[in-house]
């Protein structure tokens, strides 16, 4: 497994951030992990990171239902970034799927080119494995 990559967790729930982070830490050693409870802040950090040259490929674990800026808003904004910024990131949706989620919404999420995975909460060790292999 190539360990030259990092993670960004975006989830408005403090508990969910914590759980995701701990699961990741347990799956692989020495991962760089940043957590954000506010998608806007994450967006700022990613925008600023463009200044740096040696960027590590980063997987963004993104919750969908968040107040203020939700997951879809985040993706829309992220896809406005220059291509050389975008190519360093892959988005994985990590969310609760409920009967209220319209299947069409889920389908629509998949159509964003920067989104390449959807994981349903609650998180388990097994659910993270494909993510780590892919990375």
């Amino acid at each position, binding site marked *: 497994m190539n360990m030259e990559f990092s993670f960004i967790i975006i989830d408005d*729930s*403090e508990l969910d951030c*914590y*759980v995701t982070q*701990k699961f990741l830490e347990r799956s692989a050693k020495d991962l760089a992990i940043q957590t954000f*409870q506010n998608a806007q802040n994450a967006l700022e950090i990613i925008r600023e990171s463009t200044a740096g040259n040696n960027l590590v490929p980063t997987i963004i674990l993104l919750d969908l239902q968040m107040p203020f800026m939700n997951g879809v808003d985040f993706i829309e904004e992220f896809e406005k970034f220059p291509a050389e910024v975008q190519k360093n990131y892959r988005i994985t949706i990590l969310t*609760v799927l409920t009967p*209220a989620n319209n299947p069409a919404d889920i389908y629509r999420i998949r159509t964003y080119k920067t989104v390449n995975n959807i994981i349903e909460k*609650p*998180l388990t060790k097994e659910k993270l494995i494909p993510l780590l292999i892919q990375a």
Partner: protein
Amino acid sequence: MSINQIKVAEKVEVLYVDDEPDHLFGFKASFRLGYQIFTAENIPQALVCLDDHPNIRVVFCDQRMPGKTGIDFFEEIRVSYPLPIRIMLTAYTDVESIIDAINKGNIFRFVQKPWIEADIIGAIEEANKFYLANSMLFIKIIELQKAYDELNKFAYSVSHDIKGPLSGILGAINLANEIDDIAEMKEMLSLMKKSVIKLDAYVLSMHDYYSLQRGELKITEIDFKKLIDELKSIYSILSKVNGVTFDISISQDGIFRSDYAILSLIFNNLLSNAFKYQDRNSKNKSVEMIIEVAKTVVTIYVKDTGIGILGSHIGEIFNLFYRSNSLEVGSGFGLYNVKSALIKLNGQIAVHSILHQGTTFKVTIPSI
């Protein structure tokens, strides 16, 4: 065609359409004491009258008139003015036109000329009852539509705000199987506890929401001292734990009557918000509540030195499930419940907020 203005005490408005002025005159003379009578000599006049007087509840029309017949007229207004109840008043009683009046004109009654006063009065009274029943039904339909819309929002929110924390807790339990370190475990338990408390608060405010929508008012004389003592006992703990200074002042001049439980709900929501949305990094955190009862109105100020509300969000903060802030503490119920409570008590609320400096809510409620 607004039917919000159903005023039972006022005279019922009746329109009579007939091409014979004598009949119009006689009709008006006979019934003007009990009813507000409008008359029209032809159909164009009648349409203008219906347009000018949206509260007309009963329309009488003669069958035989120059130009259009009474049936044609009824057939037309059945679509354009569906609310007034249609009654045919005619000397012309062949079976054909009676059938048409019923099938095409959808009439409520058929009264024969020359009329007997009791028949006309009876017809108006029955028609009025029918009109009221229809209008009430219309209002109920609007209310139902609103209830359905809220139910939809509810289903969405419940699935997120209940399933969200639950799946977080479940994830944490899954993780717990991997953890051996006690300190780490305790850290996670305290986060889990926060999620459980949030769920609990959500269920409580859902109950508030429901009782506000369906409950009756229980009016008593309000003892603000008692209310304040209750609030102090709850919030002085929060004040100590979070390092927020908390002051309540009151001046009462006169007796104030209202619903204690609903007042308490308003005060609790505003206060808990004031504590909740403090700026964690600020040195001087304070919450101040001022209650002024002057004659028959109470004015309440709740001031905090919190994070404030973005100007563009102010218009939306009273909406159900709206959350202005990304702090995860909000359920989206609180201010909506405050607004519903104030509507019940005929109260008003105003908000003034400066981002990063604080928010002041001003509530005024009349005594009932």
